[in-house]
């Protein structure tokens, strides 16, 4: 059975997945010299596959440059993928053009990290939220105004704020505006790209709760892109860990946090500071920094920093496939045995 078939089973969904990504790749060309010839490629996303069920939250985690944001944008075709397939409700969206692509976009929205950068400073927030309704011909005139007022109320803002401009809002409020704007066109899937990373902890909690309430009320599916693993622990149903353009581990939330199998995931989890001064947890300190995606290491991309005791020559030659090592728990590591972890996992 292929690992993809496993993934289908692991998603636990007898139903059709809402979103199915296969072998998604995005290479950015590197040009150099006088003639600006293509001399290489930054392999930002390098063969990523996963599925998201209706109403599910899949978190995509990893450090800067791992390709999580590029993956999110490629799914919405805000960045054109180099290759791969993206099926949304069974439709291959990479073949869509013009009007049919625009219609599809209504169902797939994005919430950005920095809502200030994504809102037009000269447009009232009411007008910004209305825009989607008009473009997709969902409502106009007084009906649109009513919808805007209802959306603002739903994200915890006062309806009369519709007449205000983005600069009049705090960071947390602007993120609520960004969420209202995404919701306006009634999508079934939202890419949340680091939606709470720029917010203070108290406001972050407000926005995380809001996203979860909206998911429950509207049956939304999220691709939740984040580097903060503690936030992910509160949001996700399943978690995919990316490193240098590849998914290195994908598992249900509980399984990933309780028994991370990939050495990188173990280090990542152990690096999260624990808000408890009496904690005696030991930390795995990874040596060095992630290599450049323009020149990724051979074999397992993590091998130069890997601290696995069984690391050997094979790790430098063979690309480990993403395989199901425990029920629903996929790992790309040659040294992790099926069913039992080869190293005791840290308990975060």
């Amino acid at each position, binding site marked *: 059975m292929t690992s993809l078939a496993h993934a289908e089973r692991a998603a636990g969904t007898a139903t059709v997945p809402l979103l199915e990504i296969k072998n998604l790749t995005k290479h950015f060309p590197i040009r150099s010299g006088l003639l600006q010839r293509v001399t290489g490629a930054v392999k930002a996303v390098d063969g990523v596959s996963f599925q998201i069920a209706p109403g599910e939250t899949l978190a995509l985690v990893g*450090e*800067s440059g791992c390709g999580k944001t590029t993956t999110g944008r490629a799914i919405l075709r805000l960045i054109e993928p180099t290759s791969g397939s993206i099926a949304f409700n069974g439709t291959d969206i990479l073949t869509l053009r013009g009007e049919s692509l625009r219609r599809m976009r209504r169902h797939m929205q994005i919430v950005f990290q920095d809502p200030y950068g994504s809102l037009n400073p000269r447009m009232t927030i009411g007008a910004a939220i209305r825009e989607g309704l008009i473009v997709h011909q969902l409502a106009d005139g007084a009906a649109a105004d009513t919808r805007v007022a209802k959306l603002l109320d739903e994200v915890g803002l006062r309806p009369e704020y519709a007449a205000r401009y983005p600069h009049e809002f*705090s*960071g*947390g*409020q602007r993120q609520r505006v960004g969420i209202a704007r995404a919701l306006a066109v009634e999508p079934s899937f939202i890419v949340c790209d680091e939606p709470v990373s720029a917010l*203070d*902890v*108290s*406001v*972050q*909690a*407000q926005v*995380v*709760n809001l996203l*979860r309430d909206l998911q429950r009320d509207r049956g939304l599916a999220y691709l939740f892109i984040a*580097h*903060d*693993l*503690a*936030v992910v*622990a*509160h*949001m996700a149903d399943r978690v995919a860990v990316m490193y240098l353009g590849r998914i290195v581990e994908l598992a249900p*939330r*509980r399984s990933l*946090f309780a028994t991370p199998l990939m050495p990188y995931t173990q*280090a*990542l*989890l*152990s*690096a*999260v*500071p*624990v*808000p*408890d*001064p*009496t*904690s005696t947890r030991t*930390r795995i*300190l*990874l040596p*060095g*920094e992630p290599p450049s995606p323009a020149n990724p290491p051979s074999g397992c991309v993590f091998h130069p920093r890997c601290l696995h005791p069984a690391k050997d020559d094979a790790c430098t030659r063979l690309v480990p496939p993403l395989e199901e090592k425990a029920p629903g728990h996929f790992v790309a590591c040659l040294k992790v045995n099926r069913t039992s972890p080869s190293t005791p996992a840290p308990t*975060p």
Partner: protein
Amino acid sequence: MTLSQLRSSQPVPAVGGGPLLNVQALHVAFPAGGGAIARAVDGISFTIAHGETVCLVGESGCGKSVTALSLLRLVPSPGRIEAGSAIHFNGLDLLTLPDEELRSIRGNRMAMIFQEPMTALNPVLSVGDQIAEVVRVHTKASRRDAWDKAVDMLGQVGIADPATRAKQYPHELSGGMRQRVMIAMALVLEPQFVIADEPTTALDVTIQAQILELLRELRARTGMALLLITHDLGVVAEMASRVIVMYAGQVVEEAPVEALFANASHPYTEGLLAAIPRLGADQARLTTIPGTVPAPTDWPTGCRFRERCAYAYDRCATEAPALVQIGSAHRVRCHLVQEPERRVRREPRA
């Protein structure tokens, strides 16, 4: 030449029995538009002992960074430190010190690590030159000795192949590497006191772990005191010996780190601790603090936190609470200290 020899030509102020740093009634104000005044720091007092790590926490806009800049007299114009404020470092009054003498302390006995190394580093000087410059400004070291010291320091902060890296420019280094350069520059003269303003906020978690480990190790080796400004309570738990919680320009709670986490007494501290997402929490709903920090031009009357507080009652609107001692080195600014029976949750108004 060793570092202590390099610095032996420097006059060392006498170290008394008192604290290393003593801040009393610090007020910092910025003129805002329309004649309004933003009282960003509004009467804070604290001390830091030799070798101690103190964390300053609170949300954006509560005055943490302005406090840090005040300690070096770097408050950006038109902001000013108001009369009546006092900052003593090793017994020296920093606020009345002539500029020349202050400059000899800054970067030498007292140094700062900024959040954004890209903006704090000079883009047209190699990182080795920038560190060597600090050495040459404050000591009589030769160009050669200063360069060697810079390379040595880059090695000490964990940069591989420091001799090559020293010749590189900031844009050629990764974010984590630039932060190490900033730390090397701050620590090259082995200051007694280092202020680090969100030093790991812009970094990935595995790199953050490396930098925090480095700060701990350097602190143990040099005995420096550290004032760490952060909004991350996980970092606080791992680094601090004592914690100062700021809200709306004031200190609202101060305690040894274990006491703060085990027995947070101010409703704001309690709210901050409850709002942190935790790894093992398993999708529990997060507790929130409603609303946001009020504007510094218009702090609320009475208790400044009352509009967001789950316990606020009539007295909170009319009477500003004082910072009172509730335990060993544990101080809290809240009326509930005198009226604990009032600690009954209600729906906040915000």
